[in-house]
């Protein structure tokens, strides 16, 4: 039974904002299915009362002083922008016209 279908891949790719061709979808579905089937073994390794670890070295909140420090100029911040206008990052329309 496949866990990852081409429909899944299409949906996941759209969530991840990656355009995929039909050919890629088929290939990725097959590859990811094999990978997921293999990594799914973690489910059987743990129980409800095993604590989860998100960070290898335990640390509590790390704070810094709230002071003004030098930072990038507007020009520096924009230096890698694919497009800009009036000192801002310029992007295409966010909403469809319809």
């Amino acid at each position, binding site marked *: 039974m496949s866990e990852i279908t081409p429909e899944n891949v299409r949906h996941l790719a759209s969530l991840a904002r990656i355009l995929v061709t039909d050919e890629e979808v088929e290939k*990725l579905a097959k590859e990811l299915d094999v990978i997921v089937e293999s*990594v799914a073994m973690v489910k059987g390794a743990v129980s409800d009362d095993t604590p989860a670890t998100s960070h290898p070295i335990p640390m509590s909140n790390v704070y810094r002083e709230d002071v003004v420090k030098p930072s990038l100029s507007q020009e520096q911040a924009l230096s890698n922008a694919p497009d800009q206008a009036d000192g801002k990052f310029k992007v*295409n329309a966010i909403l469809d016209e319809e």
Partner: protein
Amino acid sequence: MSELYKKPASELAQMLRSGEVTSVELTELFLDRAEKLNPQTNSFLRINRETALEQAKHADELIMAGNAPSALTGVPIAVKDNLTTTDAITTAGSKILENYLPQYDSTVVSKLRAAAMPILGKTNLDEFAMGSSTEFSAYGPSKNPWDLERIPGGSGGGSSSAVSGFLAPIAIGSDTGGSIRFPAAVTGSVGAKPTYGAVSRYGLIALASSLDQVGPVTNDVMDAALLQDVIAGHDPMDSTSLVDSLGQMADFASKTDIKGLRVGVIKQLASDGFQPSVKARFDESIQMLTDAGAEIVEVDCPSFEYAVSAYYLILPAEASSNLARFDAVRFGERVLPEGNPTIERVMASSREAGFGPEVKRRIILGTYALSSGYYDAYYGSAQKVRTLIQQDFEKAFASADVLISPTAPTTAFKFGEKLDDPLAMYLNDVATIPANLAGIPGISVPNGLAENDLPSGLQILAAAKNDGVMYSAAAGIEKLHNDKWGKRMIDFAPELEAK
């Protein structure tokens, strides 16, 4: 070992201080070698002759004035191209960053500059450090100096091939699941992953933030220790950076006596799945340690069986989130689809064109592992496995000072061999991944020639923040090997010739 370019950085540093050689001379020597040999090895994505020589001149002035700021002042170095540099394009091996000139230096690079170490150039890597062979670099693979038909390991194959081919005396790498240690093993060099947080990640282009760690790539243990001393330390710009100092690694690396050292052999990493000759070299090293007075104990780490699986859920999950920043808005290549597209379609087209196959695979896998309905079963379980692995290590380090295993299951394989089989590629890191999941330090040192007369590696692990113990043990084992063979393993490597 008469040639200057084959000398360890520690010796070059001494020659610089005594005035036998200048930093400009040394830097020129390595720049010449890099320019001459890089067409064959593809170790470097960029060689920075002009800036490196300026930095070398500055280093010479400091040395002349008796003001050398570090033990390695004047020694040139290569830097993996996922660390930002304000004076050189930083691509992380990806097409999406083809023209990206960072606005800030990574902390590690700032420390190299403060130490007056000339930066020769930026080294190749699998795209965003995702891979074990450099075959996933958008700029072509790097070659293994022992055999140019074979992989130099990955993701840090640029740094490993530069150092093992003597295009650079030392280099910087990054290790998320073995990207420093695996390349070291297959190129007969040394690579260390410090304790998580020992070295700042500020300016390291993030792959998986809870696993990534920057570290040294060198030809001997003392050089790795000296380099860790230069790049380690607390950094307020990285909130996961350790506040405590771990001591001077070079002091630890000068202690080579291993009598009484309790060495744990990890049961799960000493049996099946390794090439017979890799396993044979490993067993010989155990005997060598016993003869030298070390106490060998077997340790049981039952949860290691799940390490690779947990890693390939946690890493893609974190990567899918980290790589969301490549949206073609603030930086990176923007691709405009036809018509009057929305920003969302621009992002999808830019990421389609800018990312390679492995990066897409992992982003989509990570998106799956984090998606609602699957999160608890996959990402949640993987995080729990992480706890079990930490507990295994805790128990193991109760009876051993260091743990050892072969670094990698095989010697260097040929290009293309594992390219179409993601799972086979992932298994290269079976022995290195547990250290990243637990945040502990690990180092790979040469362990004799195995399959096809190619180098194999020995991995030495120590408990978190015990990097010093790791360096002492590694230096001791290295000395046993060098005494046995009469020279370093890297000195068995064939001489590279320009074509």
